């Protein structure tokens, strides 16, 4: 399996997300060649999360605004209370539609719309989490020809989310957090 032409990375995480993302985002270089879109379920002060990661990371980390063009070397974190989607012209779209699986932002919503826009050029990552959001989205990414990476449930802080993703998407690549970072760092360096 190869990503001949990776265009974007999407990441979904829930319980334990702050730790897991702390292992990943600070290791991305300032000129990381792809955009990264992230949905994290955090009940309180997710804006604080952006401030936290922005201060630790070389790559730009922020909450996007509606219809913003998606550009490389930028990590877009879904704003609290909004679904984050990708438009066909690869700009950001936000929505206040109802929560999906009790979640807004929803990982499924991001992954499914990104899969439609990026197809084979999408790399999706499911990290730790205590619910099943993202499983359906991971399957959509795979069906559209994209690559799915799943954090090894045996080592994840919460195994439910990665396990659910693997159930729906058995062809996903199972990796440790380190393995995921290595994989992401190798993208777009050919």
């Amino acid at each position: 399996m190869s990503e001949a032409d990776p265009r974007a990375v999407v990441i979904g995480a829930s319980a334990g997300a702050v730790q897991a993302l702390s292992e990943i985002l600070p290791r991305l270089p300032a000129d990381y060649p792809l955009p990264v879109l992230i949905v994290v379920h955090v009940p309180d002060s997710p804006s604080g999360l952006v401030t936290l990661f922005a201060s630790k990371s070389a790559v730009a980390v922020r909450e996007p605004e509606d219809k913003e063009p998606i550009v490389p070397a930028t990590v877009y974190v879904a704003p609290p209370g909004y679904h984050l989607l990708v438009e066909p012209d690869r700009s950001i779209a936000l929505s206040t539609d109802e929560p999906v699986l009790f979640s807004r932002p929803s990982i499924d919503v991001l992954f499914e719309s990104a899969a439609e826009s990026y197809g084979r050029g999408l790399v999706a990552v499911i990290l730790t989490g205590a619910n099943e959001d993202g499983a359906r989205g991971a399957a959509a990414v795979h069906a559209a020809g994209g690559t799915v990476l799943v954090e090894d449930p045996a080592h994840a802080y919460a195994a439910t989310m990665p396990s659910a993703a693997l159930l729906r998407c058995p062809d996903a690549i199972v990796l440790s957090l380190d393995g995921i970072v290595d994989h992401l760092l190798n993208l777009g360096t050919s």
Partner: protein
Amino acid sequence: MSEAVRSESVEDIEIQLLLEALYRRYHYDFRHYARASIKRRLRQALEQLGFKNFSAMQQALLHGDTLVTRLLDYLTVQVSEMFRDPGYFRAVREKVLPHLRTYPSLKLWIAGCSQGEELYSFAIMLHEEGLLDRTLIYATDINPAALEAAQAGVYALDRLAAFTRNHQLAGGKSSLSDYYTTAYGRAVFDKALRAQVVFSDHSLVTDAVFAECQFVSCRNVMIYFDRQLQDRAVGLFRDSLSRRGFLGLGSKETLRFSAHADAFSEFVREEKIYQRRDG
């Protein structure tokens, strides 16, 4: 041939045709809604209404009269909260109202009022500030059922805790419970709040300017539009606002990418409140 054309799926074609049918048969124009969200909503409608595909749905839409109402609910209905994003209402109260207070009479337009949560929030705040009596409020939406709900001002009681918390965070000077009575698990808002509210069917997509206003609040409505349609709507707001009138948007909306960005200045940047420039 561009990549977009090559990758157009049968479903994409069907969706385009369905939206075209909806427009030509019923004059509801969703053709320039942001594609990712409307696709999601349409798929949900497809699944729940039990159609095999969008072509079947289109057939039912064209040849019957009943589907359109139900489809409209899927495409438009938004559940909001009263005083959603309390910081916005606090900024309006503390920074915008001192300006508006100098006018002998005021016109406020809630564009895309849905079921009225934002409308009642404004009415309550204007009442607290002693301005409600001299304010005419236009509450518009394209969905007749939503307008009816807005006009009724009745909300499930279990939503009131969140409304009350928001109201306090927004700098509320009274108790929210002063404005509603409860019955059968519902909160019924005081009709005095809507004594000077004009409820009207108005589309930001197809209709024109109808009044000159000092304040337009249009929050989380244009996120469903593509850039072209956003430009149309913002143009409408510019033409509706009096000189130095105010435009309030949702917290993640921006005029940065708008064709009319130059017509406005940022008034309260972090709360997305803009002011129309002179001229």
